[in-house]
């Protein structure tokens, strides 16, 4: 008999981004971390005004430009060509990070290697022996945004849980994460650790727990 994990259909990266985008309300100012979180922008419904911030000085970032319409001076924090939405604006770096540090962003979505049950997050370096890791703006975003959500695979390629009791990788911020979106589930971080908000169809809490290092419980509805 197939286990619940084998029977369910994990989300693709796009699927996680789509799931997360559903939960962003109109009017929020949101920074999307480089990599997978940037895909969230593709799934925000056109009739919902959500303002995307890019830490290199863009507020009101729009989608990738159509071929032949690239502004060669307009890139996002992931160094991809982007556009500016109508109503968008530019700032210099210190003002852009003042928006972040000053608590003006409603939400930041980051990718991560590990999230701990106390909200600690590790996303910038995989080893204390790496002496030239690239931190970029991750620590500023994790400490400064009003809410931090993490978008990541539930386990590593070799099957190790990324939701852990304590992070073993170098930390990006302490106690910062409020919610995690994985290919298997959406989980809140509460005073009592991870609380499962929902799971992909067919998955059970027991099967999810089997692939998760940190203890899980269902969120109270």
């Amino acid at each position, binding site marked *: 008999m197939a286990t619940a994990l084998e029977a369910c259909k994990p989300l693709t990266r796009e699927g996680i981004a789509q799931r997360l985008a559903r939960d962003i309300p109109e009017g929020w100012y949101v920074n999307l971390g480089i990599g997978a979180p940037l895909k969230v922008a593709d799934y925000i419904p056109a009739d919902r005004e959500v303002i995307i911030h*890019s*830490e*290199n*000085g*863009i507020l009101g970032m729009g989608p990738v430009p159509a071929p032949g319409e690239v*502004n*060669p*001076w*307009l*890139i*996002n*924090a992931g*160094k*991809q*060509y982007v556009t*500016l939405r109508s109503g968008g604006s*530019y*700032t*210099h*770096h*210190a003002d*852009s*990070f*003042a928006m*972040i*540090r000053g608590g003006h962003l409603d939400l930041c979505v980051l990718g991560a290697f590990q999230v701990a049950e106390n909200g600690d997050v590790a996303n910038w370096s995989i080893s*204390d022996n790496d*002496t*030239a*890791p*690239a*931190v*970029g*703006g*991750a*620590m*500023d975003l994790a*400490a*400064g945004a009003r809410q931090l959500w993490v978008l990541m695979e539930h386990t590593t390629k070799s099957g190790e849980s990324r939701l852990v009791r304590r992070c073993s990788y*170098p*930390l*990006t*911020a*302490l106690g910062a994460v409020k919610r995690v979106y994985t290919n298997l589930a959406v989980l809140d971080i509460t005073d009592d650790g991870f609380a499962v908000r929902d799971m992909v169809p067919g998955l059970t809490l027991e099967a999810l727990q089997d692939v998760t290092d940190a203890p899980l419980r269902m969120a109270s509805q």
Partner: protein
Amino acid sequence: MINKIVQTMAEAMADIRDGSIVLLGGFGSIGQPNELIEGLIEQGAKDLTVVSNNAGTGRFGLAKLLELGRVRKMICSYPRSAGSVVFEEVYRAGKIELEIVPQGTMSERMRAAGAGIPAFYTATAVGTKLAAGKEEREIGGRKYLFEEALHGDVALVEAWEADRWGNLTYRSSARNFNPVMATAAALTIVQTQHIVELGALDPEKIVTPGIYVNRVLHVPYGEPKVI
């Protein structure tokens, strides 16, 4: 008559000394004054500390300066990116010192320098290994790190338009670190795509007022080809 516009690269680069702290604008190559870096290479100053978000790509501009062994120390947030081959080489060979600074802390340290603020506290990096050796203080129930202002001897800046007083505008996201660095250095040198008559810039749209600028060189290089 004030005229900060210089005619040659040699004039632009005059008096940059060995051992200088050089603030280098740009995010990747966008907004990075690559011709001024070439000028600095030609000028010959060495033993430099370079403050820049990234550590250069390819083998031109900042990467070339690194390859020539002219940089003693890099202060940056994101040294490794696609194409940062030269940095990797010199770093692995132990030929360069590296200080990793979170991007927002780096920009605020320069903003503070330009604004006469000697230091500040920030929640960024509390509890991480980048907090090592830094004073931690609790204010209003939250922990913060003590960070000092970061002054430059020289800032190399790329602008879109400039006039002879050194008033500057920028283009899209090429603004990035440039206006902050312009305020934080003793000597601010600008390369600009366009020179305009004094009075032609809309005062409502000037981002960097000329008080922060010492020299302006006209470098109409066209469009950036590399990100």
